[in-house]
Protein backbone atom coordinates (compact mmCIF):
# COMPACT_ATOMS: atom_id res chain seq x y z
CA UNK A 1 0.00 0.00 0.00
CA UNK A 2 1.36 3.41 -0.97
CA UNK A 3 0.36 6.93 0.00
CA UNK A 4 1.50 9.22 -2.80
CA UNK A 5 1.74 12.94 -2.11
CA UNK A 6 -1.28 12.98 0.14
CA UNK A 7 -2.50 16.41 1.22
CA UNK A 8 -5.29 16.96 3.66
CA UNK A 9 -6.76 20.38 4.33
CA UNK A 10 -9.68 20.54 6.73
CA UNK A 11 -12.72 22.68 6.12
CA UNK A 12 -11.49 25.22 8.66
CA UNK A 13 -8.29 25.70 6.66
CA UNK A 14 -6.00 23.66 8.88
CA UNK A 15 -3.42 21.90 6.77
CA UNK A 16 -2.97 18.52 8.43
CA UNK A 17 -0.90 16.69 5.81
CA UNK A 18 1.35 18.07 3.08
CA UNK A 19 2.68 15.76 0.44
CA UNK A 20 2.83 12.73 2.65
CA UNK A 21 4.62 9.78 1.08
CA UNK A 22 4.35 6.46 2.79
CA UNK A 23 5.13 3.06 1.41
CA UNK A 24 3.98 0.09 3.45
CA UNK A 25 5.08 -3.40 2.46
CA UNK A 26 3.12 -6.55 3.27
CA UNK A 27 3.84 -8.02 6.68
CA UNK A 28 5.60 -4.91 7.94
CA UNK A 29 5.17 -3.32 11.35
CA UNK A 30 5.43 0.41 10.70
CA UNK A 31 5.33 2.96 13.50
CA UNK A 32 4.27 6.51 12.67
CA UNK A 33 6.05 8.64 15.25
CA UNK A 34 5.60 12.35 15.75
CA UNK A 35 4.56 15.10 18.13
CA UNK A 36 0.89 15.65 18.96
CA UNK A 37 -1.04 17.27 16.16
CA UNK A 38 1.33 16.19 13.41
CA UNK A 39 -1.39 14.54 11.39
CA UNK A 40 -0.57 10.93 12.29
CA UNK A 41 -4.18 10.14 13.07
CA UNK A 42 -5.33 11.97 9.95
CA UNK A 43 -2.98 9.87 7.86
CA UNK A 44 -4.46 6.74 9.42
CA UNK A 45 -8.00 7.90 8.70
CA UNK A 46 -7.07 8.60 5.08
CA UNK A 47 -5.63 5.10 4.75
CA UNK A 48 -8.80 3.62 6.26
CA UNK A 49 -10.96 5.59 3.85
CA UNK A 50 -12.71 7.41 6.69
CA UNK A 51 -11.41 10.68 5.32
CA UNK A 52 -10.80 11.64 1.69
CA UNK A 53 -7.41 13.20 0.85
CA UNK A 54 -7.60 16.73 -0.53
CA UNK A 55 -4.87 15.80 -3.02
CA UNK A 56 -2.81 12.71 -3.75
CA UNK A 57 -3.82 9.07 -3.83
CA UNK A 58 -3.80 5.96 -1.72
CA UNK A 59 -2.77 3.01 -3.88
CA UNK A 60 -3.47 -0.61 -3.10
CA UNK A 61 -1.64 -3.59 -4.56
CA UNK A 62 -4.72 -4.84 -6.37
CA UNK A 63 -7.07 -1.92 -6.86
CA UNK A 64 -9.44 -4.10 -8.87
CA UNK A 65 -10.51 -6.07 -5.80
CA UNK A 66 -10.65 -2.96 -3.64
CA UNK A 67 -9.25 -3.66 -0.23
CA UNK A 68 -11.79 -1.52 1.57
CA UNK A 69 -14.87 -3.21 0.24
CA UNK A 70 -13.38 -6.57 1.13
CA UNK A 71 -13.19 -5.51 4.77
CA UNK A 72 -9.54 -6.23 5.01
CA UNK A 73 -8.74 -3.27 7.21
CA UNK A 74 -8.90 -3.40 10.98
CA UNK A 75 -8.88 -0.18 13.00
CA UNK A 76 -8.05 0.26 16.67
CA UNK A 77 -8.87 3.68 18.05
CA UNK A 78 -7.19 5.64 20.80
CA UNK A 79 -10.07 4.76 23.10
CA UNK A 80 -11.43 1.22 23.19
CA UNK A 81 -14.60 2.50 21.44
CA UNK A 82 -16.72 -0.44 22.53
CA UNK A 83 -20.50 -0.38 22.49
CA UNK A 84 -21.37 -0.19 26.21
CA UNK A 85 -24.79 -1.77 25.71
CA UNK A 86 -23.65 -5.20 24.62
CA UNK A 87 -21.27 -7.83 25.97
CA UNK A 88 -17.66 -8.26 24.92
CA UNK A 89 -18.74 -11.16 22.71
CA UNK A 90 -21.27 -9.06 20.82
CA UNK A 91 -18.83 -6.18 20.49
CA UNK A 92 -16.29 -8.44 18.82
CA UNK A 93 -19.04 -10.02 16.74
CA UNK A 94 -20.07 -6.65 15.27
CA UNK A 95 -17.85 -6.54 12.15
CA UNK A 96 -18.96 -10.03 11.16
CA UNK A 97 -22.61 -9.23 11.84
CA UNK A 98 -22.42 -6.12 9.66
CA UNK A 99 -20.91 -8.24 6.90
CA UNK A 100 -23.68 -10.80 7.19
CA UNK A 101 -21.48 -13.72 8.20
CA UNK A 102 -23.65 -16.68 9.29
CA UNK A 103 -24.11 -16.74 13.06
CA UNK A 104 -22.52 -20.14 13.70
CA UNK A 105 -19.25 -19.50 11.89
CA UNK A 106 -19.13 -15.95 13.23
CA UNK A 107 -19.47 -17.22 16.79
CA UNK A 108 -16.59 -19.58 16.15
CA UNK A 109 -14.34 -16.78 14.86
CA UNK A 110 -15.24 -14.59 17.83
CA UNK A 111 -14.47 -17.35 20.32
CA UNK A 112 -11.11 -17.99 18.62
CA UNK A 113 -10.05 -14.36 18.57
CA UNK A 114 -11.16 -13.80 22.20
CA UNK A 115 -9.00 -16.73 23.13
CA UNK A 116 -6.06 -15.16 21.30
CA UNK A 117 -6.30 -11.88 23.20
CA UNK A 118 -6.89 -13.67 26.50
CA UNK A 119 -10.50 -12.62 27.04
CA UNK A 120 -12.18 -16.01 26.63
CA UNK A 121 -13.41 -15.92 30.23
CA UNK A 122 -14.92 -12.43 29.83
CA UNK A 123 -17.08 -12.97 26.77
CA UNK A 124 -20.28 -12.28 28.69
CA UNK A 125 -18.93 -9.25 30.55
CA UNK A 126 -20.03 -5.74 29.64
CA UNK A 127 -17.32 -3.21 28.73
CA UNK A 128 -17.78 -1.19 31.91
CA UNK A 129 -17.02 -4.28 33.97
CA UNK A 130 -13.54 -4.56 32.42
CA UNK A 131 -10.28 -2.80 33.21
CA UNK A 132 -8.79 -0.34 30.72
CA UNK A 133 -6.32 -2.92 29.47
CA UNK A 134 -9.00 -5.57 28.96
CA UNK A 135 -11.21 -3.11 27.11
CA UNK A 136 -8.33 -2.41 24.75
CA UNK A 137 -7.85 -6.15 24.29
CA UNK A 138 -11.51 -6.44 23.33
CA UNK A 139 -11.04 -3.57 20.89
CA UNK A 140 -8.05 -5.35 19.32
CA UNK A 141 -10.02 -8.58 19.15
CA UNK A 142 -12.77 -6.77 17.28
CA UNK A 143 -10.23 -5.42 14.78
CA UNK A 144 -8.70 -8.87 14.30
CA UNK A 145 -11.91 -10.85 13.96
CA UNK A 146 -12.23 -10.15 10.24
CA UNK A 147 -8.62 -11.34 9.76
CA UNK A 148 -7.59 -8.03 8.22
CA UNK A 149 -4.56 -7.73 5.96
CA UNK A 150 -3.88 -4.29 7.31
CA UNK A 151 -4.27 -3.32 10.95
CA UNK A 152 -4.33 0.41 11.70
CA UNK A 153 -3.73 1.39 15.32
CA UNK A 154 -4.13 4.97 16.53
CA UNK A 155 -2.15 5.36 19.78
CA UNK A 156 -4.07 2.44 21.21
CA UNK A 157 -2.08 2.15 24.43
CA UNK A 158 -1.55 5.84 25.17
CA UNK A 159 -4.11 5.94 27.97
CA UNK A 160 -2.90 2.80 29.75
CA UNK A 161 -0.49 2.49 32.63
CA UNK A 162 3.04 1.39 31.85
CA UNK A 163 2.75 -2.15 33.18
CA UNK A 164 -0.38 -2.82 31.15
CA UNK A 165 1.17 -1.15 28.11
CA UNK A 166 4.28 -3.36 28.23
CA UNK A 167 2.11 -6.45 28.56
CA UNK A 168 -0.05 -5.43 25.61
CA UNK A 169 3.06 -4.56 23.56
CA UNK A 170 4.32 -8.11 24.07
CA UNK A 171 0.95 -9.64 23.29
CA UNK A 172 0.57 -7.52 20.16
CA UNK A 173 3.98 -8.64 18.89
CA UNK A 174 3.06 -12.26 19.54
CA UNK A 175 -0.23 -11.90 17.67
CA UNK A 176 1.52 -10.12 14.81
CA UNK A 177 4.07 -12.96 14.51
CA UNK A 178 1.29 -15.49 14.23
CA UNK A 179 -0.97 -13.59 11.83
CA UNK A 180 1.69 -11.68 9.84
CA UNK A 181 -0.82 -8.88 9.40
CA UNK A 182 0.62 -5.60 8.18
CA UNK A 183 0.42 -3.08 11.01
CA UNK A 184 0.59 0.71 10.90
CA UNK A 185 0.91 1.88 14.48
CA UNK A 186 0.61 5.55 15.41
CA UNK A 187 2.38 6.59 18.61
CA UNK A 188 4.12 9.51 20.22
CA UNK A 189 6.31 7.29 22.35
CA UNK A 190 9.85 6.75 21.05
CA UNK A 191 10.29 3.72 23.31
CA UNK A 192 7.12 2.05 22.20
CA UNK A 193 7.87 2.59 18.52
CA UNK A 194 11.38 1.13 18.80
CA UNK A 195 10.19 -1.86 20.80
CA UNK A 196 7.42 -2.77 18.39
CA UNK A 197 8.21 -1.65 14.88
CA UNK A 198 10.40 -2.99 12.14
CA UNK A 199 10.44 0.50 10.64
CA UNK A 200 9.84 3.88 12.22
CA UNK A 201 8.54 6.80 10.19
CA UNK A 202 9.20 10.12 11.93
CA UNK A 203 6.80 12.92 11.00
CA UNK A 204 6.98 16.69 11.36
CA UNK A 205 4.16 18.74 12.81
CA UNK A 206 1.78 21.11 11.02
CA UNK A 207 1.63 20.23 8.23
CA UNK A 208 2.48 16.58 8.64
CA UNK A 209 5.02 15.03 6.30
CA UNK A 210 7.65 12.33 6.56
CA UNK A 211 10.85 13.66 8.08
CA UNK A 212 12.94 10.52 8.44
CA UNK A 213 12.70 6.75 8.32
CA UNK A 214 14.63 4.42 10.58
CA UNK A 215 14.82 0.67 10.24
CA UNK A 216 14.89 -1.25 13.50
CA UNK A 217 17.17 -4.17 12.69
CA UNK A 218 16.73 -6.08 15.94
CA UNK A 219 15.24 -9.51 15.16
CA UNK A 220 11.88 -10.71 16.45
CA UNK A 221 10.80 -12.20 18.78
CA UNK A 222 11.62 -9.27 21.00
CA UNK A 223 10.98 -9.76 24.66
CA UNK A 224 11.57 -8.07 27.98
CA UNK A 225 15.37 -8.32 27.78
CA UNK A 226 15.29 -6.35 24.51
CA UNK A 227 14.07 -3.36 26.51
CA UNK A 228 17.29 -3.31 28.52
CA UNK A 229 19.69 -4.15 25.68
CA UNK A 230 22.34 -1.72 24.42
CA UNK A 231 20.93 -2.01 20.92
CA UNK A 232 17.48 -0.88 22.09
CA UNK A 233 19.04 2.08 23.87
CA UNK A 234 21.02 3.15 20.83
CA UNK A 235 18.04 2.93 18.46
CA UNK A 236 15.99 4.89 20.97
CA UNK A 237 18.69 7.56 21.06
CA UNK A 238 18.82 7.83 17.27
CA UNK A 239 15.02 7.94 17.07
CA UNK A 240 14.79 10.60 19.76
CA UNK A 241 17.32 12.72 17.86
CA UNK A 242 15.35 12.34 14.65
CA UNK A 243 12.15 13.30 16.48
CA UNK A 244 13.82 16.37 18.01
CA UNK A 245 15.04 17.45 14.57
CA UNK A 246 11.59 16.82 13.09
CA UNK A 247 10.01 19.05 15.73
CA UNK A 248 12.57 21.78 15.06
CA UNK A 249 11.98 21.51 11.31
CA UNK A 250 8.23 21.55 11.79
CA UNK A 251 8.42 24.66 13.93
CA UNK A 252 10.09 26.66 11.15
CA UNK A 253 7.52 26.10 8.47
Amino acid sequence: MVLRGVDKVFANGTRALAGLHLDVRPGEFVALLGPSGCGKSTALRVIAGLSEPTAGVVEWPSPATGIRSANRIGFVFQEPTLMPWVSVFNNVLLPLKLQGVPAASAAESVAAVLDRVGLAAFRRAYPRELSGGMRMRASIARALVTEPQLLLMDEPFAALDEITRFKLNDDLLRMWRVSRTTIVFVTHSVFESVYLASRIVVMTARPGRVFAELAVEAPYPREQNFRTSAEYASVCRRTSEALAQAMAAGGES
Partner: protein
Amino acid sequence: MTVRASGGERRDRIVRVALPIAVLMLGLAIWELVVRIENVPPYVLPAPGVILQTLAADWAPLSQSLLVTLVTTFEGFLLAAAGGVGLAVLFNQSRLVEYSLYPYAVILQVTPIVAIAPLLLIYLPQHAAVLVCAWIVAFFPVLANTTLGLHSVDRNLTDLFALYGASRGQTLWHLKLPSALPYILGGLRIAGGLSLIGAVVAEIAAGSAGAGSGLAYLIAESGYRLNIPRMFAALLLLSLAGIAIFYLLAFVNYLALHRWHESALQA
Protein backbone atom coordinates in the same frame (compact mmCIF):
# COMPACT_ATOMS: atom_id res chain seq x y z
CA MET B 1 -19.63 -6.22 48.78
CA THR B 2 -23.36 -5.80 49.29
CA VAL B 3 -23.12 -7.37 52.72
CA ARG B 4 -20.29 -5.11 53.84
CA ALA B 5 -22.01 -1.96 52.60
CA SER B 6 -25.22 -2.69 54.48
CA GLY B 7 -24.87 -1.06 57.96
CA GLY B 8 -24.83 2.68 57.30
CA GLU B 9 -26.40 2.48 53.87
CA ARG B 10 -29.36 0.50 55.11
CA ARG B 11 -30.02 2.92 57.91
CA ASP B 12 -29.80 5.71 55.36
CA ARG B 13 -32.37 4.01 53.14
CA ILE B 14 -34.76 3.39 56.05
CA VAL B 15 -34.50 7.03 57.07
CA ARG B 16 -35.18 8.13 53.50
CA VAL B 17 -38.37 6.08 53.38
CA ALA B 18 -39.46 6.67 56.97
CA LEU B 19 -39.05 10.46 57.09
CA PRO B 20 -41.54 11.38 54.34
CA ILE B 21 -44.03 8.88 55.79
CA ALA B 22 -43.62 10.45 59.24
CA VAL B 23 -44.20 13.91 57.75
CA LEU B 24 -47.33 12.61 56.00
CA MET B 25 -48.67 11.06 59.20
CA LEU B 26 -47.99 14.23 61.15
CA GLY B 27 -49.68 16.37 58.52
CA LEU B 28 -52.74 14.11 58.40
CA ALA B 29 -52.98 14.05 62.20
CA ILE B 30 -52.90 17.86 62.41
CA TRP B 31 -55.45 18.10 59.59
CA GLU B 32 -57.79 15.64 61.30
CA LEU B 33 -57.38 17.40 64.66
CA VAL B 34 -58.02 20.87 63.31
CA VAL B 35 -61.15 19.75 61.47
CA ARG B 36 -62.50 18.03 64.61
CA ILE B 37 -61.63 20.76 67.10
CA GLU B 38 -62.87 23.60 64.93
CA ASN B 39 -65.87 21.56 63.79
CA VAL B 40 -65.24 22.40 60.15
CA PRO B 41 -68.11 21.10 58.00
CA PRO B 42 -67.06 18.49 55.38
CA TYR B 43 -68.24 20.68 52.47
CA VAL B 44 -65.59 23.22 53.49
CA LEU B 45 -62.74 20.89 54.41
CA PRO B 46 -63.27 17.15 54.91
CA ALA B 47 -61.04 15.36 57.41
CA PRO B 48 -58.65 12.70 56.08
CA GLY B 49 -60.79 10.02 57.70
CA VAL B 50 -63.88 11.24 55.86
CA ILE B 51 -61.98 11.26 52.56
CA LEU B 52 -60.92 7.65 53.11
CA GLN B 53 -64.52 6.71 54.00
CA THR B 54 -65.70 8.39 50.78
CA LEU B 55 -63.05 6.53 48.84
CA ALA B 56 -64.38 3.23 50.18
CA ALA B 57 -68.06 4.14 49.88
CA ASP B 58 -67.82 5.57 46.36
CA TRP B 59 -65.31 3.00 45.17
CA ALA B 60 -67.51 1.82 42.29
CA PRO B 61 -67.80 5.15 40.39
CA LEU B 62 -64.29 6.24 41.45
CA SER B 63 -62.58 3.09 40.25
CA GLN B 64 -64.52 3.17 37.00
CA SER B 65 -63.42 6.76 36.37
CA LEU B 66 -59.88 5.90 37.35
CA LEU B 67 -59.85 3.13 34.77
CA VAL B 68 -61.13 5.48 32.06
CA THR B 69 -58.48 8.08 32.85
CA LEU B 70 -55.73 5.48 33.05
CA VAL B 71 -56.68 3.95 29.70
CA THR B 72 -56.67 7.40 28.06
CA THR B 73 -53.32 8.20 29.66
CA PHE B 74 -51.86 4.91 28.55
CA GLU B 75 -53.11 5.30 24.98
CA GLY B 76 -51.85 8.87 24.82
CA PHE B 77 -48.52 7.77 26.22
CA LEU B 78 -48.14 4.97 23.67
CA LEU B 79 -49.00 7.33 20.82
CA ALA B 80 -46.57 9.92 22.19
CA ALA B 81 -43.81 7.33 22.51
CA ALA B 82 -44.35 5.97 19.01
CA GLY B 83 -44.84 9.43 17.50
CA GLY B 84 -41.90 11.01 19.31
CA VAL B 85 -39.40 8.26 18.58
CA GLY B 86 -40.72 7.75 15.05
CA LEU B 87 -40.57 11.42 14.19
CA ALA B 88 -37.08 11.78 15.70
CA VAL B 89 -35.82 8.84 13.64
CA LEU B 90 -37.40 10.35 10.53
CA PHE B 91 -35.77 13.71 11.26
CA ASN B 92 -32.46 11.95 11.79
CA GLN B 93 -32.67 10.19 8.45
CA SER B 94 -33.77 13.20 6.44
CA ARG B 95 -32.69 16.79 7.00
CA LEU B 96 -35.43 18.07 4.68
CA VAL B 97 -38.18 16.48 6.74
CA GLU B 98 -36.60 17.84 9.92
CA TYR B 99 -36.43 21.39 8.57
CA SER B 100 -40.01 21.20 7.28
CA LEU B 101 -41.67 19.80 10.39
CA TYR B 102 -39.63 20.70 13.46
CA PRO B 103 -41.05 24.25 13.84
CA TYR B 104 -44.57 22.82 13.96
CA ALA B 105 -43.58 20.35 16.66
CA VAL B 106 -42.33 23.31 18.69
CA ILE B 107 -45.55 25.26 18.06
CA LEU B 108 -47.61 22.30 19.28
CA GLN B 109 -45.48 22.19 22.39
CA VAL B 110 -45.55 25.88 23.33
CA THR B 111 -49.27 26.46 22.80
CA PRO B 112 -51.00 25.86 26.16
CA ILE B 113 -53.02 22.66 26.02
CA VAL B 114 -55.84 24.16 28.08
CA ALA B 115 -56.40 26.58 25.22
CA ILE B 116 -56.37 23.92 22.52
CA ALA B 117 -58.63 21.41 24.27
CA PRO B 118 -61.97 23.24 23.75
CA LEU B 119 -61.24 23.56 20.04
CA LEU B 120 -60.36 19.91 19.69
CA LEU B 121 -63.61 19.02 21.45
CA ILE B 122 -65.53 20.88 18.76
CA TYR B 123 -63.92 19.05 15.86
CA LEU B 124 -63.29 15.59 17.29
CA PRO B 125 -65.38 13.01 19.10
CA GLN B 126 -64.76 13.31 22.82
CA HIS B 127 -62.55 10.26 23.31
CA ALA B 128 -60.39 11.17 20.33
CA ALA B 129 -60.07 14.78 21.53
CA VAL B 130 -58.93 13.69 24.99
CA LEU B 131 -56.45 11.31 23.42
CA VAL B 132 -55.05 13.97 21.11
CA CYS B 133 -54.59 16.28 24.10
CA ALA B 134 -52.65 13.63 25.99
CA TRP B 135 -50.55 13.05 22.89
CA ILE B 136 -49.78 16.70 22.19
CA VAL B 137 -48.57 17.30 25.72
CA ALA B 138 -46.51 14.13 25.97
CA PHE B 139 -44.88 13.65 22.59
CA PHE B 140 -42.55 16.63 22.52
CA PRO B 141 -40.19 15.56 25.32
CA VAL B 142 -39.87 12.17 23.63
CA LEU B 143 -39.11 13.84 20.30
CA ALA B 144 -36.61 16.30 21.76
CA ASN B 145 -34.81 13.72 23.88
CA THR B 146 -34.65 11.13 21.11
CA THR B 147 -33.30 13.74 18.69
CA LEU B 148 -30.62 14.65 21.21
CA GLY B 149 -29.77 10.99 21.75
CA LEU B 150 -29.51 10.21 18.06
CA HIS B 151 -27.09 13.10 17.66
CA SER B 152 -24.95 12.04 20.63
CA VAL B 153 -23.48 8.91 19.10
CA ASP B 154 -19.78 8.28 19.73
CA ARG B 155 -17.85 9.62 16.70
CA ASN B 156 -15.40 6.73 16.71
CA LEU B 157 -18.20 4.17 16.75
CA THR B 158 -19.78 5.96 13.79
CA ASP B 159 -16.43 5.70 12.00
CA LEU B 160 -16.19 2.05 12.90
CA PHE B 161 -19.60 1.34 11.38
CA ALA B 162 -18.57 3.26 8.25
CA LEU B 163 -15.31 1.31 8.04
CA TYR B 164 -17.19 -1.98 8.00
CA GLY B 165 -19.60 -0.68 5.39
CA ALA B 166 -22.70 -0.73 7.60
CA SER B 167 -25.94 0.23 5.87
CA ARG B 168 -28.12 3.08 7.14
CA GLY B 169 -30.52 0.60 8.64
CA GLN B 170 -27.75 -1.29 10.42
CA THR B 171 -26.27 1.93 11.77
CA LEU B 172 -29.67 3.03 13.02
CA TRP B 173 -30.60 -0.26 14.62
CA HIS B 174 -27.26 -1.40 16.03
CA LEU B 175 -25.70 1.96 16.85
CA LYS B 176 -27.93 5.02 16.93
CA LEU B 177 -31.01 3.65 18.69
CA PRO B 178 -29.11 1.79 21.43
CA SER B 179 -26.90 4.76 22.19
CA ALA B 180 -29.98 7.01 22.23
CA LEU B 181 -31.84 4.63 24.56
CA PRO B 182 -30.97 6.43 27.83
CA TYR B 183 -32.22 9.69 26.29
CA ILE B 184 -35.37 8.05 24.92
CA LEU B 185 -36.17 6.55 28.32
CA GLY B 186 -35.59 9.94 29.95
CA GLY B 187 -38.10 11.42 27.52
CA LEU B 188 -40.59 8.64 28.25
CA ARG B 189 -40.34 9.28 31.98
CA ILE B 190 -41.35 12.88 31.40
CA ALA B 191 -44.02 11.85 28.90
CA GLY B 192 -45.64 9.44 31.38
CA GLY B 193 -46.51 12.21 33.81
CA LEU B 194 -47.42 14.62 31.04
CA SER B 195 -49.86 12.28 29.32
CA LEU B 196 -51.77 12.03 32.62
CA ILE B 197 -51.84 15.82 32.78
CA GLY B 198 -52.99 16.03 29.16
CA ALA B 199 -55.77 13.53 29.77
CA VAL B 200 -56.96 15.37 32.90
CA VAL B 201 -56.91 18.79 31.21
CA ALA B 202 -58.92 17.50 28.28
CA GLU B 203 -61.43 15.77 30.57
CA ILE B 204 -61.94 18.94 32.57
CA ALA B 205 -62.44 20.91 29.36
CA ALA B 206 -64.85 18.25 28.13
CA GLY B 207 -66.63 18.16 31.48
CA SER B 208 -69.26 20.68 30.44
CA ALA B 209 -69.94 18.59 27.35
CA GLY B 210 -71.46 16.09 29.73
CA ALA B 211 -70.44 12.70 28.43
CA GLY B 212 -67.12 12.53 30.32
CA SER B 213 -66.53 9.79 32.79
CA GLY B 214 -62.86 10.09 33.74
CA LEU B 215 -61.54 11.09 37.16
CA ALA B 216 -61.11 14.72 36.18
CA TYR B 217 -64.70 14.86 35.05
CA LEU B 218 -65.69 13.35 38.35
CA ILE B 219 -63.78 16.09 40.16
CA ALA B 220 -65.51 18.80 38.13
CA GLU B 221 -68.92 17.22 38.61
CA SER B 222 -68.41 16.72 42.37
CA GLY B 223 -67.41 20.38 42.54
CA TYR B 224 -70.74 21.44 41.08
CA ARG B 225 -72.48 19.27 43.64
CA LEU B 226 -70.31 20.55 46.50
CA ASN B 227 -69.31 16.95 47.17
CA ILE B 228 -65.90 18.06 48.47
CA PRO B 229 -64.89 14.71 50.07
CA ARG B 230 -65.34 13.00 46.73
CA MET B 231 -63.22 15.69 45.02
CA PHE B 232 -60.45 14.94 47.48
CA ALA B 233 -60.82 11.19 47.00
CA ALA B 234 -60.58 11.55 43.20
CA LEU B 235 -57.58 13.86 43.58
CA LEU B 236 -55.91 11.27 45.80
CA LEU B 237 -56.44 8.60 43.14
CA LEU B 238 -54.98 10.88 40.45
CA SER B 239 -51.88 11.51 42.56
CA LEU B 240 -51.48 7.81 43.22
CA ALA B 241 -51.83 7.09 39.50
CA GLY B 242 -49.13 9.66 38.72
CA ILE B 243 -46.80 8.17 41.31
CA ALA B 244 -47.43 4.66 39.97
CA ILE B 245 -46.66 5.79 36.41
CA PHE B 246 -43.46 7.50 37.52
CA TYR B 247 -42.14 4.47 39.37
CA LEU B 248 -43.21 2.05 36.67
CA LEU B 249 -41.21 3.99 34.09
CA ALA B 250 -38.27 4.34 36.47
CA PHE B 251 -38.33 0.55 36.82
CA VAL B 252 -38.41 0.05 33.04
CA ASN B 253 -35.50 2.48 32.82
CA TYR B 254 -33.58 0.44 35.38
CA LEU B 255 -34.31 -2.85 33.60
CA ALA B 256 -33.08 -1.52 30.28
CA LEU B 257 -29.98 0.32 31.45
CA HIS B 258 -28.67 -1.11 34.69
CA ARG B 259 -26.05 -3.28 33.04
CA TRP B 260 -24.34 -0.58 31.06
CA HIS B 261 -25.37 3.01 31.56
CA GLU B 262 -23.88 5.23 34.25
CA SER B 263 -27.26 6.76 35.11
CA ALA B 264 -28.75 3.44 36.18
CA LEU B 265 -25.78 1.88 37.95
CA GLN B 266 -26.20 1.06 41.60
CA ALA B 267 -23.73 2.98 43.70
